[in-house]
């Protein structure tokens, strides 16, 4: 079992993409050969202009999209075109993923949405509503809501929350199972400054305390530089630079976004 060993090894490779290419429907190529290696415990910020392929890359990492070419292994599991659903599942069970866009089940309560985070675990049919879930899961879900300061809204329907609140529910859902790898697509985009800061600090704390690996995108350069140990910039489907966050210069950023 290669992943068992990699779990123990502190510096093991969590994400290993080589010459990764991805095009939608065989049209314009979005990712044109991306090489990215992330080792356990790192906090990586992915930055780039709108439409440069950040979300696409993140989704490929857990097999939500099949890659078109190149090779990709996440936590030791190879994820190539269509093959091996078992590997995909293994990856996903150890990953927390926060989507960029709305992705809650709107007719369920906030608490149920967070309990959904346990889907995939044993007995997961009980995760589809908070009323059925085991007590331990319910308790853990409330704690996760606490972490994003929404426990008082636990029984509201998900679609009666404000945009930022919904985003925080999605974050709680990703955290409820304490993943090994946390991937967050613009987690702080619709959060107010304080909440954004809280969430990013929470992420950082989890990484330090539990050895979780963090990969997030952000359009807030301050967040990227503050909370990541390493910044990767995408441009034109390729990696423009990949530096530790303290070495990123303003001109690097200018290059990243100037069309």
């Amino acid at each position, binding site marked *: 079992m290669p992943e068992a060993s990699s779990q123990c090894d502190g510096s093991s490779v969590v994400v290993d993409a080589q010459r990764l290419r991805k095009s939608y429907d065989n049209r314009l190529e979005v990712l044109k050969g991306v090489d990215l290696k992330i080792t356990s415990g790192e906090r990586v910020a992915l930055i780039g202009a709108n439409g440069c392929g950040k979300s696409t890359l993140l989704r490929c990492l857990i097999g939500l999209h099949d890659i078109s070419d190149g090779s990709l292994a996440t936590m030791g599991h190879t994820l190539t075109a269509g093959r091996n659903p078992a590997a995909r599942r293994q990856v996903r069970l150890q*990953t927390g993923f926060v989507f960029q866009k709305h*992705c809650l089940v709107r007719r369920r309560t906030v608490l149920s949405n967070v309990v959904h985070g346990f889907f995939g675990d044993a007995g997961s049919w009980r995760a*589809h509503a908070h009323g059925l879930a085991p007590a331990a899961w319910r308790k853990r879900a409330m704690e996760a809501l606490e972490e994003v300061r929404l426990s008082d809204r636990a029984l509201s329907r998900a679609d009666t929350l404000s945009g930022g609140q919904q985003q925080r529910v999605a974050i709680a859902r990703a955290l409820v*199972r304490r993943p090994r790898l946390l991937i967050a697509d613009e987690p702080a985009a619709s959060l107010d400054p304080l909440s954004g800061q809280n969430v990013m600090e929470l992420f950082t704390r989890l990484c330090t305390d539990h050895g979780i690996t963090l990969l997030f995108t952000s359009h807030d350069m301050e967040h990227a530089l503050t909370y990541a140990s390493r910044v990767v910039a995408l441009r034109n489907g390729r990696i423009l630079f990949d530096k530790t966050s303290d070495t990123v210069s303003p001109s690097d950023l200018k290059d990243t976004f100037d069309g």
Partner: protein
Amino acid sequence: MAESRHVVPSRLSGITALHFVILVTLAAVILGSMGQVAPSPGQLAAGAPGMVNLVGRMMPPNLEPDFLWRIAVRILETFQIALVGAAIGIAISLPVGWLAARGVSPLGRGHYVFKMLTSLLRTVPDLVWALLFVATVGLGAVAGTMTIVVDTIGFCGRFFAEAMEDAEKEPQEALAAIGAGRSAILLGAVLPDIAPSLTNSALFALEKAVRSSVVLGLVGAGGIGQELKVAFDLFQYRNASTIILVIFAIVLAMEFITDRLRARIQ
């Protein structure tokens, strides 16, 4: 690139020649046939008196207490069988619809087998089901229930599958990203999203089972539909109009329940 930016795209962009040919052909077939088989306004106007006359002969509905009582009993009988038949049918349709839904089904390409199955259930006429079930369980309410079950699966299986295929994709993807299996996605994301649509199809199936005038009569389970058919066959139009009104009241009541349930779920 800088050049092309200023060009406003052509109006027809996106429509291929093939689409165009298919559309025109279809329109031609329909319009061509229309001359032969669709009514002309003149015909309709000329026929209006005949229509009025016919409706006049259905009025007033027969409201004799004896008759009403018999109808009430029949309605209850019918409703009971329809309710059980539709309930069983709906319960079976949920997994069938799931297995048949493209993109949601755990069978992948195999979903087509279940699509075909529901199509088959619809295609085989009620009379054949009646024959099969009478041969199996004999005449009566049980065979009637089974016929309704089959009808319901044929209908709900298709519409449940359709609803599942059209369910919002983002929440499903979100659960998939957590590692949820097909069935977890079904229960967690798909069903809540399509709940209003399911309610509609399910209550329509129940309504259909109540209305269906032939099915129960076919297997000797009587029912209100049989009563209606008899009234027409014996030219007792006033009885028929009473029965139609009673069924209409039930249909309206069910429509009302559907509406309330859906408004609440939404």
